[in-house]
């Protein structure tokens, strides 16, 4: 048990009352709704950690068809040869910087969903990322898929937490939004200023929707801070990569039983139109190190079997390199799912590098099959309700052993 374990005692401290009976009478509806949610998450409850790679990660230099002559001929100066990869089948290999993922693969804890995208892939960063984050290729939906999951529950600033300053689209529902927390935690003022700032978080009938959101962010700050401040007091090692810092923060919250079912973290810089090789090698190496380190961190807690990590990007990249030794926007790419309860292995199949669809890789797997698995088998939620009646899912999560 770590000293910052969050437990019932903290719950009472948060509500600031000496006895539960006297307290209940003084709670407003809002307080009661919030306080009720600040119970620790029971061990055995699954947790989803979503890693978004912004910019369009090059799938072919991540899960590498390193023996395919078409791979080598299309990328004369930016292909990885056998000495620069970690073979994981007779045709595919992980980028050699991804030793952490290699170990997860060997341990059968890494699922690689090949050729993932959606029908008629969009080559715009922003349109395609919007499609992934809303979970809707039709483009009519503006709410995020995790936001819609939140919409089904009473307001609870703990249920989904992103590690950043601004809210990503995937956490914005129609009614509810996820909370954002910086890696350094949340501080609140002391004394009279604390009381007065807290008052600014009350709702008012005069508020427009956005002013109400502004007030809500203040009340969320207070609700989150009392629980999270002691847990996040030490902060991540400053030598870690940005993603490792975010995941370290998530790991601390998970270890302390913070009642959060979904975490969102991200890594940027994947838009490698030029001089790709060194940049992308470094980025997927950071990804692999950060995820493996995080799973080791939570692996040392009773929650080792609870955590599932999902890694995706808005698209892969063109098969053929350009003159700047980079690649332009492409279509399908692998999605990674990692964790103790993940049934490791390949799902779908590697798209052909020669039978292209409009010059790009074919789509083998629809990303909604992956999302449906995450919703049903990690978040205990009926996927069709969140994903506009999407009917199918992958079976890549094994039931809890207990």
């Amino acid at each position, binding site marked *: 048990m770590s000293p910052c374990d969050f437990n019932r005692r903290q719950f009472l401290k948060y509500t600031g009352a000496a006895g539960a009976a006297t307290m209940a009478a003084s709670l407003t509806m809002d307080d009661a709704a919030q306080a009720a949610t600040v119970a620790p998450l029971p061990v055995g409850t699954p947790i989803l950690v979503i890693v978004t790679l*912004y*910019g369009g990660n090059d799938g072919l230099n991540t899960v590498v068809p390193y023996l395919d002559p078409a791979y080598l001929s299309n990328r004369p100066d930016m292909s990885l040869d056998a000495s620069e990869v970690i073979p994981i089948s007779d045709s595919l290999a992980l980028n050699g910087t991804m030793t952490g993922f290699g170990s997860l693969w060997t341990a059968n804890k890494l699922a690689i969903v090949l050729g993932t995208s959606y029908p008629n892939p*969009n*080559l*715009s*960063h*922003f*349109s395609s990322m919007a499609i992934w984050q809303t979970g809707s290729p039709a483009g009519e939906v503006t709410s995020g898929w995790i936001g819609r999951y939140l919409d089904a529950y009473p307001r609870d600033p703990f249920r989904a937490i992103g590690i*950043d*300053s*601004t*809210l*990503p689209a995937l956490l*914005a529902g129609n009614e509810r*939004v996820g*909370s*954002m*927390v*910086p890696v350094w935690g*949340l*501080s*609140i*003022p002391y004394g*009279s*200023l604390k009381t*007065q*700032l807290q*008052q*600014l978080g*009350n*709702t*008012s009938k*005069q*508020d*427009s*929707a*956005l*002013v*109400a*959101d*502004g*007030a809500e*962010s*203040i009340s*969320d*700050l207070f609700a*989150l*801070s009392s629980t999270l401040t002691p847990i996040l007091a030490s902060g991540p090692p400053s030598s870690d990569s940005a993603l490792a810092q975010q995941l370290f923060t998530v790991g601390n919250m998970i270890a302390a039983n913070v009642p959060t079912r979904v975490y969102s973290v991200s890594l*940027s810089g994947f*838009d490698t*139109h*030029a001089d790709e090789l060194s940049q992308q090698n470094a980025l997927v190496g950071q990804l692999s190190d950060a995820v493996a380190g995080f799973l080791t961190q939570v692996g040392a807690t009773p929650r080792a079997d609870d955590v599932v990590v999902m890694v995706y990007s808005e698209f892969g990249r063109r098969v053929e390199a*350009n*003159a*700047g030794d*980079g690649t*332009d*926007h492409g279509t399908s790419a692998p999605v990674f799912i990692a964790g103790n309860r993940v049934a490791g292995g390949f799902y779908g199949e590697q798209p052909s590098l020669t039978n292209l669809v*409009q*010059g790009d890789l074919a789509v083998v797997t629809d990303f909604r099959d992956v999302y449906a698995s995450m919703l049903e088998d990690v978040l205990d939620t009926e996927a069709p309700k969140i994903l506009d009646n999407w009917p199918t899912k992958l079976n890549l999560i094994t039931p809890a052993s207990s």
Partner: protein
Amino acid sequence: MTAASDRLELSRLVHRFGLGPKPGEYLQLLASGIPLARSRILARRSDAGLVGVDTQLYPDLGEQPSDPTANTAYWTEVYNQSQTVGTWWMDRMVAADYPFIERMTWFWHGHWSTSISKVQFARAMQVQNDTLRTHALGNFKDMSRAMVQDCALIYWLDGEENVAYSPNENLGREFMELFTLGVGNYTQNDVHQAALGFTGYQVDLNAGTVSFDASQHESKPVSVLGKRQVFDAVSLSDWIVSRPENAKFIARRLWFRFISTTIEPPASLAKVFENRDISVLINTIARNPAMRRPQYSQAKAPVEWFVSACRALRVTPSKLMAAGDLDWLMSSMGQFPFNPPSVGGWPYDEAWLTAAAIPYRMQLATALVKAGNLEPLTSVPKSKMVQAAADWLGVAQWSLRTERALNLAVSDPSQLALLALNAPEYVVNA
């Protein structure tokens, strides 16, 4: 008694088309009536506020030296400039008596979103900033011509790597998707062909200049949006900007950032932009009846919040704290000038209204209140201080919730100011 809708409209005019009122300005403008106030806010005049403000570009640092010690010093200077350049611009935003042109330049910076994180050289960003300011209220065709020949933009979108024998699509795609037409108004083939039209431009990053290398330029005709000819960047920009989709797209982009991210503009708005006259378009937007309707609220982006607070408190950003500290605090809120997260620009509205941003906003507000001039509060009796805060900051109306909280702080004007700057009605432009 002024009508509540006048207070609301003026609050929107001073915050969205200006960068927040200087002390006393909101009440003066209110007394003059909305039509005169609007003309004053949208006016372009020689600006006495800018006297003494450093608007000079940083010197060209030249090519990096080969000597290791000199090379280290060179890159240290590049880094230092990348931290101070955001404040260099914000000093100007804060000082201006007629901030409309800075506000428009700020909009265009988010539109032609280019980041120093890749460009590295502050001078190249300043050159782009001057270009955007020159055309901020001019003709979009001229602006677009200048931008396709802008050093920072070309480098940011790999135009440097875009050569005839192997085109790089980055600039061609984002030019049509994000800068001129909007997604869906071109095909993948148009992207490829446009990339060919943009080939051959080389940059001198430290100087912020561009040169044309005809040997790397596609000399054969290419086909873009149904027109086949030999294009260069200027003729290609002219052709794309002449498309009717451009008028609709740019009109919507301005509406989105000045009026509403959720309610569409009237269909007629694109018509006033037929001649690509930005001034006509923005003046039309500023006169739309939506300006008086409550549902058109918008959250202030962190830079807009910070600059408006500096203007109210008479604080010069570069004198508030070390440049690196200001960069860090504002970046922790998610925004610092010249460093947008991607070519898509910054997020908007509820994305800014997070618990994560508040501790950093409080920290900045604390520094501002300590350094700033609180006379608008200290010069009035306690019983009038809460209303004086609204008038000073250009807030249309405090809610009862905020009024109650502020009333608890009337014995301490610093604390009242700190709370007012963090009130939902100030963080969001109701």
